[in-house]
Structure formats: C-alpha cells, structure tokens
C-alpha cells in the first residue's frame, strides 16, 4: 500500500486536465466569436447537402453548382450591400442523407454561421426538413432537387422556393414519347415504384391514370420500400404478364438492382423508363452496357438553348474529370437566383431578400424562372436515353440530340 502526499498528488495528471479544460473552452468560444465577427464583413449563405450517405452522388453535384455561382460573384467583386461591396461566403455542411441532420445543420448555419439566406438539399425528405427550419426562422431558402408536388404538399411556404420538374409532366412523358415517335408495343404496362414521396405520386397515382388515358393496360403496379433490394418476384410477374412497357420510379441503388434483375430474368421489355435513379452517371457506370436504352426524364442538358448551358457542362467536366449531371444546373441556377435576389435587395434583411426572390423573372441556365403563388417554378422536360455511357435527348424532336434505341437492346 502506498499513500501519497498532497504535493505528489497534485503533480499527477490532474493539473494537465486543469490546464486543458480552460484551453478547450476558450477554443470553442473563440471559434464561435470569430465566426460571428467574420459574418459582419461578408454575406454568408448556408447549405446543408448530402455529401455522404446514399445520396452523396447528388450532393457532390450540388456542391459544385453552388460553389461555382458563389465563386463567380466573388470574382466580380462581390455584392453591394448598403453601398459597400461585400464578398459572399458559402458554408456547406454534410447532412449525411438524414433529415434530422439537415434540420440540425440548417439551425447551426443560421445561429452559428450567421447565414442570411439558404440553399436547399436534395430529395423531398431532406429539402423539406431544411425548409421547415428556414420557414420557422423566417430566412429565405432557394432549392432545386425537390419535385414540385412533393414540395407543395408540405405546407403553404412563405420563405422557401423551389425550381424543379412537375411530377404530372414527368409522368406524362413516356406516353407522349410512345405516341409521338410511333413506337409499337402490345400496350401492356408494368409499374414498379418505391413508396417515397415522389414514387407514390408518379408511380402510384399518375402513371396508372395516364396509361389508362393513353389506352394502355396496367397489368402490374407494384410498390416497394425505398431501400428494398430484391425485385425478382416483381420482375417475374411483369414478365409472366407480358408487359412490353416497364415504368420504374426508384433511387439509384434500387434502379441498378432492378435493371440487373430484369436482365438476369431474361426479360426484355421493349421500353424501359427508370425515373429518378437512372439520372446520375453512377447509374450508367454501375451497369455498363445494360444501361443502354434506359430512358429517364430530364430537365436539363448542355444542348438546351439557355445562357451558359454548354459552358457549365464543359467547366464541370474539365474541373472534375467527371461526366456532368443535370443537378449541376439546378443547383447553379438556385444559387444564382438567391445571389441575384440579395443584389437586388441591396440588403441583408431576410424579408427584403425574400421579397426579391419572389420577384425573380429571368432566364437562367435551366430556362426561364418565375415563381408562382405556391413558390414553385417548373423546369421544361425532355426524355433522355442512355446510349454508350452518355445520355442523348430523344424527345421532343426539336431538342433531340440522338435517335431513340427501340426496343431496348
């Protein structure tokens, strides 16, 4: 047994802890105060986006689009606020594809980083979680990447604004393509859709209605959980019922599984549309040749006749050495709309910025943007098809950049 003297005891690790505690507290306090001080000299815009988790693919495109718009403004000298040019600082946080984190991040962006305006995340669950916080705090938030009906169904928005595609228009495209391009099928349709917000609307409601109106018979309409991985029984049923048109609404991992399981079942529908999941380049990378012939609705392509459309894709591909995605365009446009609104308001007052966003009426890289009374702006749509690892526009005829592969190879 050993007893210690007080002196020996106090020379043990405790003093180290004693010294470290104030240092740690001071560091946290200094970090917070320096953030507040910085915020007074610059315009802080915050965005919580999915940089990890299942939607990290979308988040990386959004990050590039948001950053490019901010960088351009800063290169031009910033934005004049109350007669003084101020730089813009974009603060990005990773929401890990979790709405809880999106909400927490959005709160921190406002309280810690003193963000004066916000940009949105991606997909309804994430965007809505951040937008609800913005709404409570009365801070304007501009977003893309959230289908308009899913956005409108949450509440009447006062401070959140969304530019994206409208689900009824997206749902109508396959039937318009079949009709306009005079594609012959047996008019039997199988629908597979997840039970996420847009999956339920597009797959569960709109496609069956539109198929009936266009004279098609829906022989199967199957709903599955968003994270389902086994589709063999669904595919087997569609094959057994002889559906030559297959319409799918699923996120990318599920979209890849469905395409593979269709192929492994020896099932060869003539037309295969995979909304949502077939959009990012990761879909084609994961499938290789199996991606060829898959159709997906699109709201943007560098060939669209809008300002800077071609330059945007070229800049993305030269900077990142990756294939562009539509999401670089809606995120770039969302950031430009917000920055234009701040410049137009000439103030950092959130109410004035919000009023300026409401007055937006300009053609951006995604087309003409003017928000309606429900705070939404529709992006015009086209039908894209994967061909040799790239997408070609196959409909409408006046925008087509390639000829449709039909039936699916």
């Amino acid at each position: 047994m050993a007893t210690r003297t007080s002196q020996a005891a106090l020379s043990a690790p405790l003093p180290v802890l004693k010294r470290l505690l104030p240092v740690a507290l001071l560091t946290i306090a200094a970090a917070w105060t320096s953030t507040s001080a910085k915020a007074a000299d610059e315009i802080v815009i915050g965005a919580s986006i999915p940089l990890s988790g299942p939607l990290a693919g979308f988040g990386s495109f959004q990050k590039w689009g948001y950053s490019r718009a901010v960088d351009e403004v800063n290169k031009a000298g910033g934005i004049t606020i109350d007669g003084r040019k101020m730089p813009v600082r974009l603060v990005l946080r990773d929401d890990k594809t979790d709405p809880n984190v999106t909400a927490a991040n959005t709160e921190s962006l406002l309280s810690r980083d003193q963000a004066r305006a916000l940009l949105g995340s991606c997909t309804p669950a994430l965007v809505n979680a951040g937008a609800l916080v913005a709404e409570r705090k009365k801070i304007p938030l501009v977003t893309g990447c959230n289908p308009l009906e899913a956005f409108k169904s949450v509440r009447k928005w006062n401070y959140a604004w969304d530019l994206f595609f409208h689900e009824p228009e997206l749902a109508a495209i396959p039937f318009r393509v079949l009709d306009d391009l005079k594609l012959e099928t047996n008019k039997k349709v199988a629908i597979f859709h997840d039970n996420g917000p847009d999956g339920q609307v597009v797959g569960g409601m709109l496609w069956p209605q539109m198929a009936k109106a266009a004279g098609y018979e829906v022989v199967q309409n199957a709903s599955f959980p968003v994270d389902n991985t086994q589709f063999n029984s669904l595919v087997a049923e569609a094959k057994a019922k002889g559906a030559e048109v297959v319409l799918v609404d699923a996120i990318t991992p599920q979209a890849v599984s469905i395409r593979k399981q269709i192929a492994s079942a020896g099932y060869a529908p003539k037309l295969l549309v995979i909304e949502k999941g077939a959009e990012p380049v990761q879909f084609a990378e994961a499938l290789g040749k199996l991606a060829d012939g898959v159709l997906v609705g699109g709201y943007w392509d560098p060939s669209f006749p809008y300002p800077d459309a071609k330059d945007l894709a070229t800049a993305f591909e030269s900077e990142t050495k990756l294939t562009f995605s539509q999401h670089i365009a809606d995120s770039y446009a969302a950031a430009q709309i917000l920055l234009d609104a701040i410049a137009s308001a000439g103030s950092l007052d959130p109410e004035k910025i919000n009023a300026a966003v409401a007055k937006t009426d300009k053609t951006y890289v995604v087309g003409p943007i003017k928000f309606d009374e429900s705070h939404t702006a529709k992006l015009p749509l086209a039908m894209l098809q994967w061909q040799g690892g790239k997408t070609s526009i196959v409909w409408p005829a006046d925008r087509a950049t390639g000829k449709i592969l039909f039936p699916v190879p």
Partner: protein
Amino acid sequence: MTVLTTSVPERSLLLYHPFVRVAVAGISFAALMAAPSFLPAYFVEIGFKLLLYIVLAEAWNLLAGYCGLVSLGSSSFFGLGAYLTVGLLNHTDSGIGLALAASALVAMALALVMSRGLFRLRGLYFTVGTLALAEALRLLVVNVPWFGGASGLFVSADLPEIAELFRDAALLLVVTSLVMTLATGSRFSVLLRAVRDDEDAASQVGVRAFRVKLAALMVASALIAIAGGLQAIKLGAIEPYGSFGLQWSVDPLAIVIIGGLGMRFGAIVGAIFFVAVGELLAEYPELHVAITGVILIILIRCAPRGLCGLLETALRRAGLTKVASS
C-alpha cells in the same frame, strides 16, 4: 485488501457530502433552466442536442453498462416516441407533456410485450434481436399507410420555440438523472450488476433476472421514447428513415464507450465530447466522418475505460477520490 487513501480526506468528504451533491444538482438545474434566457441561439440549439444525447446515452448505459443488455434497438423506441407524439399532437388536443407521457407509456408497453422474446436471447443474439426489432418497426411504418409511408408526417400544431424545448429536455435530463441515481445507487444497482456479471449465478442465489432486465428495459425505453418525441417536435416533420435511423442506436453506444461504459458520468462526459467534436469538425464536411472515426479508435485504444476512466485514474493519483485497491 481494500484500503482508502487518506492523504486529502477533507476534500474527498466535501465532494461526497450529500448536502453538497444536492446543492450542486440544484444549482445545475437552475442554471440549465435559465440558460436559454442568456445563451446565444447557437448554444441553445447545441445544448438541446447535447441534453437529448445525454438522455439517450444514460438509457443505453443503464441497459448495457449496468445490466449487460447490449442493445442496438434504441432507434425503435426513439422512432416510436416520435411517431406517437406527432400522432397525438395532430389528432388530439393533448399538449406536449401529455403526448410525451403517453409515448413513454406505450414504449414501456412495447418493451413489456417484446421482453419474452428478447430475453430468451443472450449476448450477441440479444443485440441482433434488438436490431431486428428496430428494423421491423421501421418497415411497419414505411408500409402501413396510416404513418405516411416513406414521406412521413408533419406536425400540424404550432411548434414551440427552441428555448421551451431546451427546458423540456432539461427536465427530461433531471428525471433521467434521478432514475439513474436510484438505479445505480440503491439495492437495485447490485441486482443489475449481478445480472450483468453472471446471470445464471445471480439466478442461483435468488435474483429474479427476468424482472431485473425487464425493469431496466422498460425504464430505458420510456426515456428514449420521450427523447424521440422531443426531437420530432423540434423537427416538425418525421419520416421512418430518419426517426428509426440506425444512428439513434449507434450514437448512444459510441457516446457511452467514449465516456466510460458502466460509469456514472460516462454518458455525460461522452456526450459532451461527441457533440463538441461534431461541431468543431462541422467546417470540414468531407473529413469529419473519417476524423471522428480516427478519434474513436485512438480513444478506445488508449482509454479502454473511456474518458471517465482516465479522469478517475487521474483523480485517484491525485488522492481526490476513494479508491479500492487490493
């Protein structure tokens, strides 16, 4: 041989005097309730998150640290609390307090119903069983239309301010601390540890292991459900992937391991560390997951008894605490 160091007895006695403990607890509670009035909004928000994490970690510590029930099912009760609270707020006139209390009762009932099956499993099998429960509940909520499917539900009532929610969370923490003090400082704590250390031996000497485990599970479930309800009210919107997300099971586990498994202040110290690291690394979204992982590995390697274990060793060396040695 068990001995007590006596070099600085005055300081030890003062720290352990019941009156001092009650006074410190009272002052801490008063400070917590007053905090939202003078703290900047950012600290109130972080404070709310911290309080919630402490409650979740305390509940997990009660189960795993004291009773040996290593659960990965916290998210099931968290999500249940979130959905019940939102459902009650949307469809009844119950206030927040009543909705949270009802959620706690339903969570206890679920724990009671599931206990027969879960307690037939031991060790890793129990852990997997709790994980399966969380997954089953999530899939139920996703597939049953009443719960809004993957889209979830929105709170239709007016949401309270963050200051009010902070005070609610502080009250929940006080209740949790009282429960934990009772559970770990009474005869019940001996029963818990007996079951944890050797359930069969404990049963042989008359401990009713099933009842002990059931009590721990029901109490922990109620606390977790209330925490879930508070989080749902704060968000104003819930959906199954977020509310039943695995992070609500894994984060409390990480917090307790960082703070000190089975140690009275392990949950608090671990939660402070966890939240502080998360906030300090928030500026580096691409790196923060990797850096947090590295910190965890270093901590587990260098401090297997957690930060509280390190602190206890330091205090023991300083002679500021009673120590058992042989």
